[in-house]
């Protein structure tokens, strides 16, 4: 039987219990239970359409849940407005970047930096992602896919998050950019930020995540430490169709 919860019996930094959510056309999440410690990175895998992105969007407040609980450091976030969830310390790097095309890189950084103050500033973010500094005056719509992804990551960092939700951050990007994303996730983990990463690129997921969880039909069905997941190709094949 798969292990579905982390080892800790005490209150985890993120506690999701019985989360039900979906859209007009139907329920997608059928009672997700999930826990995550501060400084832990959880890789969330699963076939297309099982509800990974819906879970991310629901945690960020962009899809309202119909039942369940989301506790972040003991504070209930389920049903809160997305801006309140963001100010509570939850940052989203959405699938497809979703940058503001007509705003410059500098405007992106300034907007995000005003959201929630902390250790991440425009200066520290540009030290980590220097390419954005070179492109400060460019409109986001003029950036390459990799630069847009860096900008989406910078936007999340500047909100000084305690929990970062990454939805397929490597999608369509060159290996060098994927390596940079892995490096940023490592930095976040070292700073005690909890990270939930949805990823199709198993190499990236294995490289950054301490644990791997798998979703099927709107629920978490499997969760193990990454090395254990890698040692068990039969289970990976059964759940994901890849070995």
């Amino acid at each position, binding site marked *: 039987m798969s292990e579905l919860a982390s080892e800790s019996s005490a209150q985890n930094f993120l506690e999701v219990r019985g989360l039900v959510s979906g859209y007009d056309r139907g329920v997608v999440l059928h009672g997700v239970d999930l826990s995550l410690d501060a400084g832990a990175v959880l890789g969330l895998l699963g076939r297309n359409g099982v509800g990974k992105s819906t879970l991310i969007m629901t945690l*960020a*407040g*962009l899809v309202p849940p119909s039942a369940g609980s989301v506790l972040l450091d003991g504070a209930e976030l389920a049903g809160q*407005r*997305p*801006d309140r969830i*963001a*100010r509570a310390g939850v*940052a*989203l790097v*959405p699938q*497809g*970047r*979703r*940058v*503001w*095309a*007509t*705003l410059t890189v500098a*405007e992106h950084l*300034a*907007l*995000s930096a*005003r*959201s*929630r103050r902390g250790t991440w500033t425009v200066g520290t973010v540009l030290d980590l992602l220097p390419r954005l500094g070179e492109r400060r005056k460019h*409109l*986001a*719509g003029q950036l390459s*896919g990799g630069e*847009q992804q860096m900008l989406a990551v910078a*936007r*999340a960092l*500047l*909100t000084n998050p305690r929990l970062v939700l990454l939805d397929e951050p490597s*999608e*369509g990007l060159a290996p060098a950019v994927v390596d940079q994303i892995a490096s940023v996730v490592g930095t976040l983990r070292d700073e005690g930020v909890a990270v939930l990463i949805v990823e199709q690129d198993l190499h990236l997921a294995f490289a950054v995540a301490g644990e791997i969880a798998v979703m099927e039909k709107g629920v978490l069905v499997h969760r193990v430490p990454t090395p254990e997941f890698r040692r068990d190709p039969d289970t990976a094949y059964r759940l994901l169709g890849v070995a």
Partner: protein
Amino acid sequence: MTAVEAPAVPGGAAAVTPRAPRGWTGLVTVVVVVVLAAVPLFLAPFATTTLTRILVFALFAVSLDLLVGVTGLPSLGHAAYFGAGAYAAGWVSINVTAEAPVPLLAGAAVGAVAAALTGWITVRSAGVFFLMLTLAIGETMHQLANTWDSVTGGANGLIGIPSVRIAGAPLTNAGFVHWYVLAVFLLGFALVWLVARSPFGTALRGIRDNEPRMRAIGYPTALYKYAVFVFAGGVAGLAGSLLAAQARFVALPDIGFLTAAFALLAVVIGGAGSLWGACLGAALVILVRDALGPSLGGHGTLLLGAVFVLVVYLLPRGAAGVRLRRRGTS
């Protein structure tokens, strides 16, 4: 799939961004202001009055551009606040004082209050629902003006508005009225421009490009939209008070759908989001409606419709977009 959010405004035009004046742009601005100020010295009173009407409508269009082009809220009922401001300024001039800046302040305040009373519901809707709600508010205000005879004059309009006074002296000469309107227009335009260029304005453009993403980094976007809706209502009311000062008559069409549609037309033709483009669009609308219209047998509106179709096909970013394309920043 990479998703870059490109804002859309009526007519399919992508919005452009007001930029800080640099180099020759600043020089052009100074030259335009000097020319506008010198107009009464060279043009006949009728031409001066036409230009004054353009300035009044331009300030109204700029306030709408702040909603449509900068924030992405295409309103079909913005004339409600323009008309409310015009009636308020006219009523105050008749019943209280015509001494500036009282009518101006009354117009701006009533425009802002009307927007505050109606905006909280409208800014929580989007797309077609926002269009329909603003249209309904515009029609409601029109009906209110039609039935509230004692204040608005009803179908006869508000007549007998005295000339604006400055330090006790009435502005009866077309040239003096033009300078008065020009001064208030510049003040109103500068206010809107400063708001659009401020960090608040950047947040509005973020809302226009992708509102959920703004919420996801912690911005209470409904509050931002409400604030700009009230501010734009106030500026529209200010423009309305200029109408009362210039025409000294406020009629039902000034608060009606056609006025709102003409302003939206001006914004789209000029290039939504640039602010100065809305002024160009306003000039075209007033020239076609008031100067060319009579010689076209009253078919000025038809000509405006044709111009709109041409602009949508040939200049999808309006007049302001031409400059951006030339600079290679589109």
